[in-house]
């Protein structure tokens, strides 16, 4: 059972999604505006936020930014259009994943589960990785799911943390965006590669000294991304 905060202005969609989620046993709080959503964030303390971008009053993007200022709760965008630039902006603002409406209850739940899974699946399978690694100025604690730089703990959104854990588990190995979509986001191979790019951008903003000359998350042109070599 998961505590879900749904921020969606259309009453029918709000009702439908709530119905679908409750049937699957999730405790769902549904609000129609961003302002109510931010309020519920404190009072309801959700484990995940489903956020419609097209909101009256405070926009979904603004809500996304405000949530990230105070919390690393997983955020999944409910988008009316998959090719919308808003999706990219939303992802860059800190959302972990997105679902294009109309979406079935199964799909929404699958995305929620993937985001909520605390460790990337392939990693738990390998098991051989050390519990704690130090790479450059970074200290990555896989057991405690904590990352610190120069001894100061970094607060990373779930997708950022998962991406860093996954890449740093195989330093120097290049992964294509499609592979990262499968392993980290649990999307199909054909998911939206912009998810990866937006997340890499956010992660770099937090861990790199110079974002234009990344040391940790390096781009391999034409292939994908890799961790290091430092």
């Amino acid at each position, binding site marked *: 059972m998961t505590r879900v905060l749904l921020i969606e202005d*259309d009453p*029918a*969609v709000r*009702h*439908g*999604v709530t*119905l*679908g989620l409750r*049937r*699957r046993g999730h405790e769902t709080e549904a609000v129609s505006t961003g302002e109510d959503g931010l309020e519920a964030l404190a009072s309801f303390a959700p484990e995940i936020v489903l956020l419609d971008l097209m909101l009256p009053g405070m926009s979904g993007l603004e809500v996304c930014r405000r949530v990230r200022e105070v919390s690393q709760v997983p955020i999944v965008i409910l988008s*009316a*259009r998959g*090719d919308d630039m808003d999706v990219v902006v939303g992802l860059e603002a800190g959302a972990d994943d997105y679902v294009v*409406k*109309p*979406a*079935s*209850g*199964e799909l*929404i739940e699958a995305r929620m589960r993937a985001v909520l899974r605390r460790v990337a699946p392939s990693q738990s399978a390998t098991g051989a990785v050390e519990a704690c690694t130090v790479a450059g100025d970074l200290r990555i604690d896989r057991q405690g799911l904590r990352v610190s730089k120069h001894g100061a703990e970094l607060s990373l959104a779930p997708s950022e943390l998962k991406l860093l854990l996954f890449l740093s588990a195989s330093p120097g190995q290049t992964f*294509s*965006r*499609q592979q990262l979509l499968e392993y980290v986001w649990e999307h*199909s*191979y*054909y*998911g*939206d*590669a*912009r998810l990866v790019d937006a997340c890499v951008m956010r992660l770099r903003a937090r861990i790199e000294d110079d974002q234009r000359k990344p040391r940790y998350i390096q781009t391999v042109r*034409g*292939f994908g991304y890799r961790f290091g070599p430092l």
Partner: protein
Amino acid sequence: MSGRLLRGDARRRFLAGGLRRRLPLRGLRRRLFSRGLRTRLVVVFLLVSALSALAAAALTFRQARSAILDRAQDSAVRDLRGQLASLAPDLPARPDRRELRSLVLQLDRSGGSRAWHTSASYRDGPLVPATGRPVPLPAGFRKAGATARTAVVQRFHRGDDPWLALALPVMTADEPSRRSGLVVYASFSLASEEQDVSSLVDAARTGALPVVLLSAVPALFAARSVLRPVRRLRSASEKMAAGALDTRIDVSGNDELADLGRTFNGMAATLQADADTRRAMEARARRFAADVSHELRTPLAAMTAVTGVLDEEAAAGRLEPETAEALGLVADETRRLTRMVDDLMEISRFDAGAAVLHRDEVDVGELVRKTLALRHWQDRVGTDVPEGLRASLDPRRIDVVLANLVGNALRHGGPSVPVHIRARGEGGRLVLTVTDGGPGIPPDVLPHVFDRFTKGDAARARSEGSGLGLAIAAENARLHDGTLTAAEAPGGGAQFTLDLPLHRTPESP
């Protein structure tokens, strides 16, 4: 139809070739005249000016020549007559040979610059020349002179030189109309007069040639002034043909070319208005389709979110069978409707030019494997993809294309139909073919397979597809600067070929 046209065309070309071979002059003329209006105008202008110069020169020459010769002839007759008038009275009535000789000697001497040669005869007697040599006279001239009552002249050629012969009968002193029987003949060269005439020809030639050449200058100017509006018209037509329907010509004057320019502007205005109307209508229709599908999405989003609930209820066996059936139907059709609206939205994006390509370097073999695995088709479809073949493409879009082609093949070919995917990277192109061993595409449907809402046959009409799948696939290929084509497979069945550049072309984003 087009085949017959082509044959007719070829025959005409063949005939034209034959004619040209037989009539080299016509070919030459065609080559000359195909050089363009300017050349033609200048050539015609030069021809006309040369012709008129030639005609003027010929006329002048004729007039001048006859004037010169006539004057020479007249003065010779006058001189001879004058000399005779002063010498004849000294002659006896019946002059003998010696007296005739002395007459012609005096005449020869008085010829002056003309240097004529004279001779005389009395009553058909022999010709008496001044010297021992006979005087050159044209044949039959003596006879004409013997019977003449007045001066007879004749031009003749002696060797290459033009000569003039004169015969002057001398009348009796007391009776001017009666012939005395004495006839004086004279002949002299016209070489100096001929020289005058030839210098005249030279003058005409040296005058006419520069005039003809100089006339090329006004000819060029005339050609320019005629051709400038033609050239403007041509460049305007080219711009129009390239799609710039707002092209207009500056028209000035009232001549035929100005009229043509005004007609052109009128035509352009009509075309532009038509095109604008059509574009506006198309844009409206597209926006309408996009708006409709967008509006449908919100209620569909609510319905889709609960289809799972309906499925569960229908499957749980707690409901009456009919209610369960109805719920299942609603859930299934909701999903179908969702797919159709998705496809409509996708097509609307292509129509609006809003479809964006997210290229990525991917392994083609992996891409094909993932497409099949995602839909659990890996056991039903054979693949032939070389290892390590990489291409720059939008994997999501190519997945859509492949899934559509393979899905069609599996659906229409029947459950056990062999479906095969083959990929090759050749000459900078990625060529993907999807072949099936099914019944193939009917020839009358083949040209329309990529049209929207085309259904292969009645059995397909109620298929899973929205009727937009192949249209979307073709649009996706086009977005990659590639093509998607349908044909009959060599062994029967259908074959779809996706042809894309392996790597992005420099001008594409």
